[in-house]
């Protein structure tokens, strides 16, 4: 079992290494530690959101509203900062608001039984619209943000930007959550076999609600990081980013039918897209290729995932039941 798991992520890891090696053959600068750290930092938002999306997908749901949640929380953070609210409160507000927005998705799925795709397709546009209403369509630009607000994600600590450290901490947190806690295991149980989960005393709807709340809270955190790092907030930031997030998960081998996936998969799936995105300008391909490449990667990954089929999903469930 462990062998199969490790080979899946190992394969993806190997593909990423081969890509990096291939690029650095022609452009040696790409493999410099500084540049690789830059790629990691650049991919941080995607990794954070992919982890949130992972727990949602594990429970057989999907969250298409992450990018809109990110943008709304980022705008609120920028506006609060403009009103002179202290930074810790701003960040707490962004995460809290994200959690509330995620909880709204979760409540609609849990209490009203509306299919997640419909709920999040709807809230996606509603959240974007709300950004327009609260910002009156205006941009919040760099000069309207305090230095502390903009500086935090870029601040260096032990050679890495704070944003990278936050990502590393969240990844570590997810490893513990997924592997060591009852909640983490219940995500798998709910997605693997909802009926069986009910019999083992797990509240399916509540677990899905928690997954949405986690995804929303992470989107809120990323909302602050995104706005602070790029020093601009407007209605359309991170537009279409939810597709990249889902792509990262699918590429990382997280089964869209629920019940199967690993933290390493989500992180590597995000890194795969991040490396491509950062490599395109280096090897001289127009950034307009990015969208088609993500799309092909999703389609290819779905095809590859399907070959594993349901058998492994059941194995996972068995091991979850044993634990």
């Amino acid at each position, binding site marked *: 079992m462990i062998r199969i798991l490790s080979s899946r992520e190992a394969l993806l890891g190997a593909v990423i290494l081969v890509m990096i090696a291939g690029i650095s053959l022609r452009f040696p600068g790409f493999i410099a530690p500084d540049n690789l750290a830059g790629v990691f930092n650049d991919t941080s938002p995607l990794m954070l959101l992919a982890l949130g999306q992972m727990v949602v997908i594990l429970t057989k749901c999907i969250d298409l509203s992450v990018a809109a949640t990110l943008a709304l929380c980022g705008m609120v953070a920028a506006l609060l900062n403009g009103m002179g609210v202290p930074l810790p409160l701003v960040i707490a507000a962004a995460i809290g608001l994200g959690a509330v927005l995620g909880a709204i998705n979760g409540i609609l799925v849990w209490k009203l039984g*509306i299919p997640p795709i419909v709920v999040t397709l*709807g809230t996606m546009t509603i959240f974007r619209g709300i950004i327009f209403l609260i910002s009156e369509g205006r941009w919040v630009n760099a000069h309207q943000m305090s230095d502390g607000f903009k500086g935090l994600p870029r601040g260096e600590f032990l050679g890495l930007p704070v944003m990278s450290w936050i990502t590393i901490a969240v990844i570590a947190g997810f490893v513990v959550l997924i592997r060591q806690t009852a909640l983490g295991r219940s995500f798998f149980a709910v997605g693997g076999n909802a009926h069986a989960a009910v019999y083992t005393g797990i509240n399916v709807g509540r677990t899905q609600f928690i997954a949405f709340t986690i995804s929303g809270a992470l989107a809120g955190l990323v909302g602050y990081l995104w706005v602070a790092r790029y020093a601009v907030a407007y209605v359309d930031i991170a537009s279409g980013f939810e597709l990249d997030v889902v792509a990262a998960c699918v590429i990382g081998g997280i089964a869209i039918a629920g019940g199967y996936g690993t933290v390493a998969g989500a992180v590597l799936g995000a890194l795969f897209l991040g490396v491509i995105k950062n490599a395109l300008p280096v090897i001289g391909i127009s950034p307009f290729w990015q969208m088609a490449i993500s799309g092909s990667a999703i389609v290819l990954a779905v095809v590859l995932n399907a070959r594993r089929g349901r058998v492994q999903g059941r194995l996972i469930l068995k091991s979850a039941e044993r634990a």
Partner: protein
Amino acid sequence: MSQLQRAAIPDRLNSPLARGLKSWEAMLLVVAIGVFILNSFASPYFLNAWNLSDATFNFTEKAMIAFAMAMLIVAGDIDLSVASIIALASTAMGVATTFGLGTPELVAIGLLVGLACGAFNGALVAGMGLPSIVVTIGTMSLFRGISYIVLGDQAFNQYPPGFAYFGQGYVWWVISFEFALFAVAAVAFWVLLQRTNFGRAVYVIGNNPTAAQFSGIRVARVRFILFLLTGLMSGVAAICLTSRLGATRPSIAYGWELEVVTMVVLGGVSILGGSGTMLGVVLAAFVLGMVTFGFGLLNVPGIVMSIFVGLLLIGVIAVPRMIRMIAKRG
């Protein structure tokens, strides 16, 4: 959609509200008339034949896709790539203009690209048994991505004069070509879904694909055809929209998949498959089109309208369920 989810979320048709659903179309009709009356109060310019004719452009193209999407959703699938198919088909037609091709060739290219995209989705979903949501999220990015590769920040706008007819021409008096096409498509899809064996097969597949297979329906083939149809109708919409705008940018029809799905769901088609009528979708098209037009008359910005569309999408499913929950408790 899996059996499991179906068990967890009972189908509307099987619920005590079955009677209520029968009047769903009636309710939509009331709403459509209400919106119409409100609009006529909102602006003195509303009740004018030419103005009303203009208003129909708000929904005709989306509705043509919604008809095919409705069948797809009744069968338990979904296609989120429709707007991207429009972008790709429109881009292909734009490329064709650079070779100096005439209007008939452009139309053929638009339809063929639509069909090809539908066949690609269908082969992956029906042929390989992959989940339609993820596949079409992928192709949504892929198809529009190809448009971006071809066009970048450029645009095609050298369409031949005859091509303008599809989006700007009038069949008779205020009846635009698009509206006539919409009406013909509405009847054709109504016949296909509700008066043919194929249509019955679609309902059966949506309710229980396994049972459909055992009762001799070629499930994979029917699902493939549905994706082909959706691709084809997206191609038709691409021709109309490109002709109406007279230009192609890669961002053309951005976000339309949401409005098309909203139209279908508002029309009373169960998102879990198995139930819904074409009349409902037609009425929903009118309601959405009139509401959008009314907001436009009141100078409401597009993004605020999209809040309304999102609320409508969720509300249409949520409100009946909330009423049912309250009724159960009370």
